[in-house]
Structures are given as structure tokens and as C-alpha cells.
């Protein structure tokens, strides 16, 4: 069974349409896509309530993504291969953007094509958890008045642990 793995780190935007079409396989009944976007109301540590944000508390303008050229690309291919070893996948696409990404911009795309939906869902969610914990990428939040590096969330580590408990 061949599997096509397509991983890219890029500054330019990606097209969900193009990637969705490229993922399709005649023997795949399921395509799952995850798209991560820069949302408003982003708080680097403690979440701000909507009321505070709209009342003029420092507003997020953009996220800046830094990576480790070489290692980041290799890490992403490595996690794609781990997912492919664990689930019945036929195509995996991972695109992560770097540089300055204003609010509403697309940051990351994970796309999976599989004969069966459960494999596609599990692999997509696993890859997002691995991306959040194991790939050298760092976010800096640029607010109107200040900037701050985003701190790693405990909930992302917890999410990662799920994949260690499950049988492969």
C-alpha cells in the first residue's frame, strides 16, 4: 500500500481547496482536514473574556511563527510517518506557515485521506497534538500595545499523553 506524505513549511498562504483535491484517492472514503487560524481574542497565558477584549484591552494583531530550519521540516515528516505506521492512511498533508500572520490568517493545515473515517480522524488529531508538542515552532503574539511569546499549554501536553496510552 503506497502512502503519499506531503509536508511543507512556508511563509505563503495555502489553499484548502487545492490540498483537499490533492488528497483524494479512489480507494479512500474519508478525508479529514484540520485548519488552524489566527483568532481574535487570543490570550498568550490566561484567556481574556470577550467583554474585556471588546472594551479595548490590548488587541491581538498578529502571530509571528519562528522555526528551526531543517529540524522543523524533518520533525514534521517524522510525525507524519508515525501516524502512517499506526493508522491505515493513504495520503497525509501537513503545511505549517511561518513569519507574521495577521488575525484571521490560516496557520496550519493537516489533511488525511484514508479508506475509513476513524483512521482519518485519529491520525489528524494525533498529528495536531504532535505538532503542538514535538515540532520546533514558536509563536509570538503581537498585540496593539505589546508583544509576548506564547507559553506552552499544559492541556497540549495532556492531549499528547492520549496517544501513548492507546494501542498502536
Amino acid at each position, binding site marked *: 500500500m503506497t502512502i503519499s506524505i506531503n509536508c511543507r513549511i512556508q511563509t505563503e498562504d495555502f489553499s484548502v481547496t487545492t490540498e483537499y483535491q490533492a488528497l483524494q484517492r479512489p480507494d479512500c472514503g474519508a478525508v479529514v482536514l484540520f485548519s*488552524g487560524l489566527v483568532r481574535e481574542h487570543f490570550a498568550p497565558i490566561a484567556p481574556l473574556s470577550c467583554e474585556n477584549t471588546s472594551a479595548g484591552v490590548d488587541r491581538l494583531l498578529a502571530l509571528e*511563527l*519562528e*522555526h*528551526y530550519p*531543517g*529540524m522543523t521540516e*524533518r520533525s514534521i515528516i517524522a510525525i507524519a510517518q508515525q501516524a502512517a505506521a499506526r493508522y491505515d492512511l493513504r495520503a497525509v498533508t501537513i503545511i*505549517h506557515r511561518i513569519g507574521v500572520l495577521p488575525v484571521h490568517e490560516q*496557520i*496550519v493545515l493537516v489533511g488525511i485521506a484514508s479508506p475509513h473515517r476513524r483512521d482519518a480522524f485519529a491520525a489528524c488529531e494525533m498529528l*495536531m497534538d504532535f*505538532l*503542538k*508538542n*514535538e*515540532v*520546533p*515552532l*514558536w*509563536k*509570538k503574539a503581537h498585540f496593539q500595545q505589546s508583544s509576548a*511569546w*506564547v*507559553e*506552552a*499549554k499544559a492541556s*497540549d501536553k495532556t492531549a499528547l499523553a492520549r496517544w501513548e496510552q492507546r494501542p498502536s
Partner: protein
Amino acid sequence: MKASQDTAVLFFASLREAMKTPNLNLALENPVQVCELVQLIATQSAAYAAALAGRELLVAVNEQLVTQQCMVTPGDTVALFPPVTGG
């Protein structure tokens, strides 16, 4: 005395900003543990010591994540960085 070999140490994200440099070159003569290498950098200046102190650091040696106890061989590329936050 052995010839020393340059060992590149890279810094990323908040650590890069705190160190005020993206990298340093260390002239190592013998293999050292990562934690010893971090100590070595901290002794170079008070600014480096402050940047490295009390911070959760991840380490990659030759682009592979390793622990602080891992040995660094002269000529390796070491990267130090905060916990990742991509995705």
C-alpha cells in the same frame, strides 16, 4: 593538548531574544553533557547566565530532541529552545 573543534549552539524564540544572539560557537576539546555545556555558556557572561537561569529548556543535538544528560561531541550542533508552541 587536543585540537578543539567548533560546536555551534543555536537559540530560538524567547531564549534567542534573551541571549541577544541566535547562536554561539564554543571551542570544545572533549565531549560534555548538555547541562555542562549550558553551565559553560552561563559562565561566559552575567547576561548569558541571567538568560539561561530558571527557564524550562528543550535541547536538540544534531536536530534530534535529547535530554540534558545527553553527551555533546565537539563538532555537534546543539540547539536550545523553550517548549514549542506551534500548530
